[in-house]
């Protein structure tokens, strides 16, 4: 056989998948979860220690305590993804990549906050993930072998939405706590077709909902300094993956679970002057949960433990300066955040898997953010933010109306 197909499908085993698999779509895929609010995004996505607008319902529910008036907010995002994949025939040798990923425009966040006595309640909807990609990988030659991988045409659509309610209250003027309960929904549509429909094809098409929650605390030892802590428990989403054999027949559907990583964060906000606010967060994202109980479909000589994703610790820094022109407040914001590598990696011995999953360097990338806003008479506020990143560029605009 001129083209040796190195991947063997394990038809004979009833496979229960508990996490992502060694399917080609996960090779270079990186999860990037969205943060709500143009204001927070413009400040390097550092908002855990500040959390003083309606997006606190998602980022740190304790911050809702700070809101003294009912308010409605809405945010729209346009995100252009650039997922580099080794797509050309000799790309695994040369390191050459092609950027895939589409530009998505969507309503990313909406909320309503209502303060009553010392309790604050909020209802919100947030898109935590919205990703689309179509890609074609040619018959790629595995370096130092005669092995060639299947040509693959892939199509991925991932969308995650939180529908939540949050409550927050203050124990004292210095200590606040908040809780948000959410019905989180993840929908996955993915299809990988091999060798012009003659190869083994896989397909996931479904929606899954889970109860998730976030809990947060804010402590203000003095007015000009605040600290925040938040823990976000995300869901395990259940899907079925259909598998088409090369002879055209279908195997029974496999169950598949995608665990969206949990998140811990600590942050601080400092106000050296009345108009200036400096924020910093450290966020730990347990990306390794994505590879827990990894399921092998293709690389039959490997063990599940050979596939892994590292947890990531992100650093977020940002600042906001507000000045006035007559009675209009104008805000200028900027910041950056690190995006440590969290791709699926392989530590086994199969050369094809090494070439595909260990492609490229693991380096931490910095993303930069800028933005601004206008607030008129403390009642209406419009903000915008732009994020420059290696793997995505994002423009978001949000509108807040206070009653």
């Amino acid at each position: 056989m001129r083209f040796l197909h190195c991947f063997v499908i394990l038809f004979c085993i009833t496979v229960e998948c508990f996490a992502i698999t060694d399917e080609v779509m996960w090779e270079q895929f990186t999860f990037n979860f969205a943060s709500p609010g143009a204001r927070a995004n413009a400040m390097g996505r550092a908002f855990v220690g500040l959390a003083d607008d309606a997006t606190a319902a998602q980022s740190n529910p304790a911050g809702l305590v700070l809101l003294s008036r009912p308010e409605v907010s809405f945010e729209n995002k346009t995100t252009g993804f650039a997922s580099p994949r080794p797509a050309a025939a000799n790309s695994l040798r040369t390191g050459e990549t092609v950027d895939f990923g589409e530009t998505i425009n969507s309503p990313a966040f909406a909320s309503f906050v209502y303060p009553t006595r010392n309790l604050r309640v909020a209802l919100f909807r947030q898109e935590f993930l919205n990703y689309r990609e179509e890609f074609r990988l040619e018959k790629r030659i595995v370096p130092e072998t005669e092995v060639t991988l299947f040509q693959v045409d892939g199509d991925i659509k991932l969308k995650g939405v939180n529908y939540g309610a949050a409550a927050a209250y203050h124990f004292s003027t210095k200590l606040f706590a908040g809780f948000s309960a959410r019905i989180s929904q993840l929908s996955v549509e993915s299809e990988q077709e091999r060798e012009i429909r003659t190869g083994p094809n896989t397909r996931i098409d479904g929606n899954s909902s889970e109860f998730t929650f976030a809990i947060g605390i804010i402590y203000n030892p003095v007015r000009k300094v605040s600290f925040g802590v938040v823990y976000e428990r995300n869901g395990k989403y259940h899907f079925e993956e259909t598998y088409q054999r090369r002879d055209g027949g279908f195997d029974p559907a496999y169950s598949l679970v995608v665990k969206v990583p949990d998140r811990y964060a600590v942050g601080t906000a400092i106000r050296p002057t009345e108009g200036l606010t400096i924020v910093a967060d450290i966020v730990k994202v347990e990306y390794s949960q994505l590879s827990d109980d990894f399921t092998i479909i293709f690389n039959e000589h490997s063990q599940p433990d050979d596939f892994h994703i590292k947890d990531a610790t992100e650093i977020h820094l940002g600042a906001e300066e507000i000045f006035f022109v007559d009675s209009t407040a104008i805000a200028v914001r900027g910041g950056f955040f690190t995006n440590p590598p969290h791709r699926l990696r392989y530590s086994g011995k199969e050369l094809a898997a090494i070439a595909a999953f260990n492609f490229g360097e693991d380096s931490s990338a910095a993303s930069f953010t800028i933005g601004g806003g206008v607030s008129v008479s403390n009642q209406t506020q419009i903000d915008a933010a732009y994020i420059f990143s290696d793997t995505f560029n994002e423009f978001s605009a949000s509108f807040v109306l206070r009653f």
Partner: protein
Amino acid sequence: MNKVIKLATFLVLVPLFISANDLWYYSYESGMKAFHAGDLNKAEFKLSSALSAQPTQGKRIKAYGTKFIRYIPDYYLGVIYFRQGRYQEALERLQKAKNAKLVTGNEAEFEELLNYVQLAEEKLKPTQEVPSENMIVPEAIEAKQIPLVADDLYTSFKKEENITVQLNFPPVPKGTREKPEVKVTTDEAELKALVAFYSADYQRAISLLEQVVLKNVQSVKAHFYLGCSYAALALQSGKRNELQRSKEHFTIVRKLNPSYKCDSKYISPRILQLYSR
């Protein structure tokens, strides 16, 4: 899942059993509401709470997010103290507000601030000590005409209606601590009612003014202040019957004297709004 639901329920129920102090800008906003409703005691409490939590005052103080508020509790506390007859404290607060330029020339309150400062200074002149009805009048000033609490306010009414008012306290022997008995005439009752009204003691004001109205049903001023007192209580408590009483008295005022000039300087705009309806 059950644990999470229990935790969520617990966290939502906790606020029902916790009574925490308000954040400074909550206190300030509710203090301002009370001030405009004429509830001076509540306003004083709330504004003082705000000031102790947030001593930095200014025309644009950050509350949260991009929300900045005009935060000048010293000025309003000064006005409250003045209306309560606490002239020394009023003067201190008002001077502080003036020196810190919390209220400046281009603002509506600036002229009022200057007036209050001037009036408070006059009140504090040594020859113008103010006895209240609970004070024992020393023999040395028994025979003197006693200046009135809030008499700056009353001066305008005296001028308006050409009334001469004098409180005559009976002589009290040295060393006795008994409250002097005061024979209350209609004018005196009306005067005391005004003092009570401007001290935010609306119940007492109503009680005295009802006496005045019983004796002189044509007293425009008594009806006006009865309307104001009921309106102030209605704004505080939200009770409809007090609002109704307020409207009744205001209607009488309009019938008796359609061109009646009221005190638009010291009476809450919300009350005047009710009157003008």
